């Protein structure tokens, strides 16, 4: 069973503001029955754009109901502008945390709030599948949404992405694509500061330095994404600028693997070790 906090259990057992406001000023419905959770949020808003009442109806697990209850408690009394700043992290924190696998419940709360505010302001919330391209077909999650949860929650692994927005939680076929999107966002987030990275150094590296950098780069930049996908990479040999690696686990024998290898591993090693690096796959 989940390790739910007392506060979460309280909001599940005694949910606040269940129901539907008659003649609401704002309405939003997010999620759907296929995906296993859905939330209908109705708001009453006064002339000063203050949320005077909020009610919810939720189809979903204990943490989905508790997140919805928490959301309504958090927004009542706030102006729409104030409420708009609420993030899914704050919803989770309000409940003294959610299990990692349940973070998507807090994301659903945040999305419902945004959609309701948009509805009030007459902005049509673009259907998610029209904004960006569907990556996860099982749960209808777009690249835009994945990029967003990665950015806003500082996610590091494909597993995190699944926990926060469900993408990759069904047939799992889209996991390599998620890894790519994740890597893209992470790069973009890191590059301005550049603190975490040591770019290609000036001057010639000794063989030992080069070997260390290659190993570090593989560990830091490449392995996590492969691990997330059930695969792994092994460094076989280094001969001058030729780096031989082998793919393991679910990556081994995968048709896309040599392309993956060429594109991502070589790019990383060229970026962090030497422009001259050539990567070869050893099939063992």
């Amino acid at each position, binding site marked *: *069973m989940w390790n739910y906090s007392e506060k979460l*259990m309280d909001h*599940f*057992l005694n*949910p606040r503001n*269940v129901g539907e406001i008659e003649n609401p000023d704002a309405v939003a*419905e997010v999620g759907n*029955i*296929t*995906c*296993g*959770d*859905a*939330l*209908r949020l109705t708001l009453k808003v006064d002339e000063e754009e203050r949320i005077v009442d909020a009610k919810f*109806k*939720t*189809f*979903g*697990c*204990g*943490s*989905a*109901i508790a997140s919805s209850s928490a959301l309504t408690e958090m927004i009542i009394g706030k102006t729409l502008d104030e409420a708009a700043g609420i993030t899914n992290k704050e919803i989770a924190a309000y409940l003294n945390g959610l299990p990692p*696998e*349940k973070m998507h419940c807090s994301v659903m709360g945040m999305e419902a709030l945004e959609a309701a505010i948009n509805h009030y302001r007459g902005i049509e919330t673009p259907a998610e599948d029209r904004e960006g391209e569907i990556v996860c077909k*099982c*749960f209808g999650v777009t690249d835009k949404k994945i990029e967003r949860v990665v950015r806003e929650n500082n996610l590091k692994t494909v597993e995190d992405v*699944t926990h926060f927005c*469900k993408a990759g*939680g*069904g047939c799992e076929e889209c996991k390599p694509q998620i890894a790519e999107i994740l890597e893209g966002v992470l790069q973009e987030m890191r590059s301005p500061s550049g603190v975490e990275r040591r770019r290609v150094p000036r001057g010639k590296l000794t063989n030992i330095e080069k070997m260390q950098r290659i190993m570090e780069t593989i560990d830091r930049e490449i392995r996590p994404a492969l691990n997330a996908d059930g695969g792994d990479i092994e460094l076989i040999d280094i001969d001058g600028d030729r780096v031989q690696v082998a793919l393991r686990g*679910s990556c081994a*024998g995968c048709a896309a693997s040599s392309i993956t290898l060429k594109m991502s591993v070589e790019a990383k090693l060229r970026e962090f070790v030497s422009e001259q690096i050539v990567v070869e796959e050893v099939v063992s």
Partner: protein
Amino acid sequence: MKTVYMDNNATTRVDPQVLDAMLPFFSERYGNPSSIHLFGGQISEALVRAREQVAALLGADPSEILFTSCGTESDNTAIRGTLRSYPEKHHIVTTRVEHPAVLTLCKELVREGYSVTELPVDRQGELDLDQLRESITPYTAIVSVMYANNETGVIFPVEEIAGVVHEKGAIFHCDAVQAVGKVPIDMQKSRIDLLSLSGHKLHASKGIGALYVRKGTRFRPFLIGGHQEHGRRGGTENVPAIIGLGRACELAAEHMGEENGRIRALRDRLERGLLEAVPHAYVNGHPDHRLPNTTNISFEYIEGEGILLLMSREGIAASSGSACTSGSLEPSHVLRAMGVPYTCAHGSIRFSLSRFNTEEEIDYVLEKLPPIIQRLREFSPYWNKKETFSAT
């Protein structure tokens, strides 16, 4: 707080008589059955007896019983052992509704280069035997089909399946973890080649399983090591658990009539009562071809985890095929394979009874559960719009 345990397909309570039989083997009778001295000798005699008890429940010869550590090990031993025994064959046939012990293994085997056919089931969870026949090729080494499904209790026609499998020249393995002890099995009349069972599903302890290997069936060990189990499974025997399994099998034979009498009646009463008290509730799985102790009921428009959490507050333990209870995001693979609509799949609850359940407990669940369903439906955005979403 009153507790009502109705999750016996997950695990069962160790019968007090089983525990009594086991206890001496933790204390004064601690010898290693392989030892030549008297400490070992008395243990190996006890093991002989336990093996006879297990064999008796199955109508098997004791030499056909191999002790393992669990049902999963039995399944792995059966499937991998057969594949190694027939190196020229590289195809496996199984079903979409198997336990992960078989399904995940098959996925791994695909990675290792084998090919696997997963047979579909219909809306009631049943197989099409013609489809089975067509799926078996000269390269099929083994067909692995469960006796009874853990989630729905649906029983497959395993003897007919065995007939089809043999007609096509393959080996038939049957994961009977949920069936042994609940339905009579007679291996003398049966044509099953390999059959897995697990101790903790029939009131023995966890950590013990067995594999029936029909005499003459090609066999290769899974755990390689010492000469234990006549060289078919290395590793010092889990003596207390084996003794417990023997006793549990003996008790299961004694209680077999009760399974199909009293327990079935309790299950039917629970099922009927819930369907009468709760609208938009449906039973998953064939109504008759089913284990006597299991019912899987879908409550539309709500999600199973909430039901379980609220039942748990009343001391009632059951399980759900909903996605959220397992940490996965998709509901049960069994219900999806059956084509149960999502409006139903997320809100499915499995009750699985045992001989320790009473009529009073059934009444208790019938009293407590309907208001829980009602309450969760009041939170659900779909409940008042059910006409749009109804599964019927």
